[in-house]
């Protein structure tokens, strides 16, 4: 029994090929596929079968990671529509970049505030909201077939992802310092 690698990631999990995602359904179907193909199910089988199992579950895991993250999902949807992403592609939207820069500065300033962890929590919340706004506006661009705009928005999502990491890293750093 082997998996059809020609299906796209959405088809693999029996999901509609679209940006809005039923997370429960994804999780459920992910586990069903794992239960079927995981190498542990082939502990008594031949090496050949076990290798196939490793490759198959590797593919399932990769697909799951790609759909779970809104940015990777958006990226993948555009690739399915033959939009090409290059390594050096980036947004040149100056107001957007300025706004991000301000958020980064606010983040650095938060360290000096009286209650840095609280300020950091607020900033994290704001980043999350902005990210969600961007995601819904991506959905709109995709629906109206404006792929150029849609790509621009995926590139912007990357910036939020980095900002998100930065917030988390600073939070952990502050906790470490408070503890030390």
């Amino acid at each position: 029994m082997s998996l059809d690698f020609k299906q796209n990631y959405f088809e693999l999990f029996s999901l509609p090929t679209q940006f809005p995602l039923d997370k429960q359904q994804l999780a459920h179907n992910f586990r069903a596929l794992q239960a079927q193909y995981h190498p542990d199910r082939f502990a008594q089988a031949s090496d050949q079968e076990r290798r196939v199992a490793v490759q198959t579950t590797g593919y399932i895991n990769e697909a799951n990671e790609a759909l779970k993250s809104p940015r990777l999902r958006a990226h993948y949807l555009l690739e399915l529509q033959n939009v090409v992403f290059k390594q050096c592609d980036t947004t040149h939207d100056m107001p957007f970049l300025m706004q991000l820069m301000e958020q980064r500065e606010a983040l650095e300033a938060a360290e000096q505030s009286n209650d840095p962890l609280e300020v950091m929590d607020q900033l994290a919340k704001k980043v999350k909201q902005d990210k969600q706004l961007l995601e819904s506006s991506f959905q709109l661009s995709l629906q109206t077939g404006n792929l150029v705009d849609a790509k621009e928005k995926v590139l912007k999502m990357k910036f939020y992802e980095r900002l998100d990491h930065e917030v988390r890293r600073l939070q952990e750093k502050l906790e470490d310092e408070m503890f030390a």
Partner: protein
Amino acid sequence: MALLQISEPGMSTAPHEHRLAAGIDLGTTNSLVATVRSGDATTLADQKGVHLLPSVVRYQADGVITVGQAAKVAEIDDLQNTIGSAKRLLGRGVSDLKTLAGQLPYQFADTEAAVPKIRTIAGDISAIEVSAEILKTLKIRAEASLGGDLKGVVITVPAYFDDAQRQATKDAARLAGLKVYRLLNEPTAAAVAYGLDQGEALDEKIIAVYDLGGGTFDISILRLNRGVFEVLATGGDSALGGDDFDHAIAEWIVQQVDQSTAHTPKQLREILVEARRVKEALSHTDVVAVTVGHWQGSFSNEQFMPLVANLVKKTLFACRRALRDADIDKDEVADVVMVGGSTRMPVIRERVGDFFNNPPLVNIDPDKVVAIGAALQADVLAGNKPDTEMLLLDVIPLSLGLEMYGGLVEKIIARNTTIPISRAQEFTTFKDSQTAMTVHVLQGERETVEENRSLAKFALHDIPPMVAGAARIKVTFQVDADGLLNVMAEEKTTGVKSSIAVKPSYGLTDAEIETMIKDSMLNAKADRETRKLREQQVEADRTLAALDAALACDGEVLLSTEEQHTLQRARDALVASKQLDTAEVIKTAIKTMEAAAEFYVARRMDSNIRTAMAGQSINKFKD
């Protein structure tokens, strides 16, 4: 009752055949073997009825090898030939000995091999061989007690174990003549032992496994849904354990007994032994009498609490972090599983219960719980429970990446990604006519090569000469269910291939892993600085290469000698600036050189246009 049993190919087994399988907890201090008998998982005892096998092996001149309690007893008299911390050396390289050797009482052999060997009276012995002796002893114990050959085993490893340490564990099992069905993370095994997958609720639930051993602390967040366990995140502190609690009590005793005189090492050892006894007694009673030499006193749980408040708090901070990595709120945690002898301390149980707002599960012996879970999983993998839905999905503990130009690391697979996984990424050549590329595989969370663990290095040769950026090199990482890595590289336009099974001869120390993760947080700023500097150095190289290529092409034609000298001076200045470790200085030098070359660039462009236009009819440029 079914008259016919139909089995799938590859899964076929004679009806009623029960395969003998066991779970092994290969621990730093003690090891255990467990198996499932008539549906129940139990640990197996030796002939004397003892379950815990001290992880100690003694080598004697006559070739006799002693394992367990007998070896442990001899440890004091025969330190050099009695090896008691093999797990700490598993998967470590000769280079790791610098940091480890001071903590271990052994003599290491001068060896060419990458695997360090301990010099004993019976020859040079590696940690893999020592571990194999322990596994052999457990194998014999299990086979004697079950009355047959073991078909396969599940061996548990700390969730933190890296690629090299997992590989070394598997090597030890092979040496012991054991077939490994699977390496299983210790916390997952503990959750399995509690049968948390057997619950009546079909909805998913979150489980935290709090594992405080003698010298290490691990926290893992697991998600369970219809028999499928997923490790969502792991964390911990490899330098925090029950021993630290002993030391806290010992320090208190030292202060009480006598502050004026220095204690001999022997006295200190006695105090430490007493401290440990007191700590263990406090798990059963609230006040304990303390006796050291002629001094007598008493110590209570109430006194104990403030002494170790910071230690406990440290573990709870790691819990918070793991929860955040898993994107889980602590109220969502349905069950907290306690593992490791140190979780017998009431102070731990109380504070952990407070933190999760949920009393932790303690009814299975915390020393045995991991082996019991491993036995249950071994039983499933042996095919003895064909109807089970149990499936254990693990994650990789540390990110995997590749060295990029300029000594930076590009992460290919982030930590806490579910395995097995395969992921490919495309790279390109940096220089014109580049025909080979080194693939350097690294493990860790930091941004620069030196600060991560190098796992393997191999070269992809015979790339056809192309312009920089034209080659398409696809590098694929594949991690199997045990967390072991394979890397393949392929040039896409020609199909030239190269691959390596990453089987490093050494691994990271637990402390290194912990420090690496911590440093990646703390040194984020330093990393950024280093990164900036590297970026500018790369940029400088690029600018210099571009200038050199241009000069070689048409410098003599387009520039006067004096102009060439001017450019040469600007070039020298940039080369000099590269030696300074300041990104800003290099950046300025690049700008200065670019400014100096501006007229040359303009002239080249004109010249190019003239060349392009030469021979073209005017018509072509009309519209």
